[in-house]
């Protein structure tokens, strides 16, 4: 199960939305020490962040994003209680996501 963690916090008068996803982000170049073969590339391709049902950020990422990706964006006028939702999908078709409210 790929956990997706979400948090928000105030930042310079705006609200920062931070996402941390449990994902291997394999580049396809790493050699498995046991099998001696390259571990196939497996990475999150798209991650999208919504505030109150509207997309605020749509991220496309490649294998050069670190393992257990951290992504953060900021929104100007978010209020306590506003709904934040993140959803992601990877190159193998696996999906994940999480929801929270601002100031939770």
């Amino acid at each position, binding site marked *: 199960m790929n*956990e997706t*963690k979400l*948090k928000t916090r105030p930042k310079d008068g705006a609200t920062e939305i*931070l996402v*941390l996803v449990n994902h291997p982000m394999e580049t396809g170049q790493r050699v498995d020490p046991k099998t001696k073969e390259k571990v196939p590339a497996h990475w999150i391709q798209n991650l999208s962040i919504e505030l109150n049902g509207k997309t605020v950020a749509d991220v496309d990422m490649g294998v050069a994003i*670190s*393992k*257990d990706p*951290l992504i*953060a964006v900021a929104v100007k006028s978010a209020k306590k209680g506003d709904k934040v939702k993140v959803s992601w999908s990877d190159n193998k078709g696996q999906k994940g996501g999480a929801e929270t409210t601002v100031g939770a």
Partner: protein
Amino acid sequence: MKIILTMLTALGLVGAVALPAHADPQADLKQFQGYFAKKFPKVKKDEYSNGFYAFPQFSDYRKMWESYNEFPPYELGLDRGKAFWGKKFANGESLGSCLKKGQIKPAYSYPHWDKAKKELRTAELDINACLKANGEKEFTDLEKDMKERVALAEVTAYFYSMYKGKRAKPDVDFKDPGALAAYEKGKEFYWARRGQLNFSCAACHVQLAGKDMGGNQPLSAGLGHPLGWPAQRLEWQRIDTIMMRYATCNSQVRAKPLKHYSPEYLDLQLYETYMSSGLPLTAPAMRN
């Protein structure tokens, strides 16, 4: 490593680390903590629990460390550890009930000298013992099975997280000859040279603490060293055990790595933790 060896030889540290001849843990503690206070007057004592990020000369690394801490990757492992900690055993007990009954001690009191068993206990050992005593599967094969070891590290990390900020106070009665002997062996291990590269722990973490080896390897102080463990290293990108760190550090000086809970490593953990008495626990922590 060649560059490092040349540097250390030039500094006269390879093959020339003096072995102090103290027999009094309390006196050792005063001297050890006093050494760092004198050498780095600007570093607040509590900061040593943060590894080399305590040093002002590494403030650039510290800025990045602070940015990791905004949403540290270890939170993922910590959540898994929390889930494991909260699981009820088949017999209705849990790790929490072992803690309540005193079979698992508060994190700040580890390593703990068990007078009855005449042995050192660490949090991992007591967590495993609790599982076994309640008919649950222990974590085993820790050297070879990374999944097992990381799962143990994660639940231990969760356990330690409940005591973050509490001050280290290993529960050891030095009047007990077995306890004192363990301490002395740990101290000896810390100061003894080993491996093809002939380093001691002290060479890097006492004499060279605060220096940047080869320009890309900042050296942390021995003071506060174990208090961030179990830790998540940038190098490993997972939470792992202090025993694993001891083993890999020994491998790096080309000394034979020892197994989890070998007496040498238990004694070492006691010595290091006792030398850090009074400093705050920071586990789990981000480390290099």
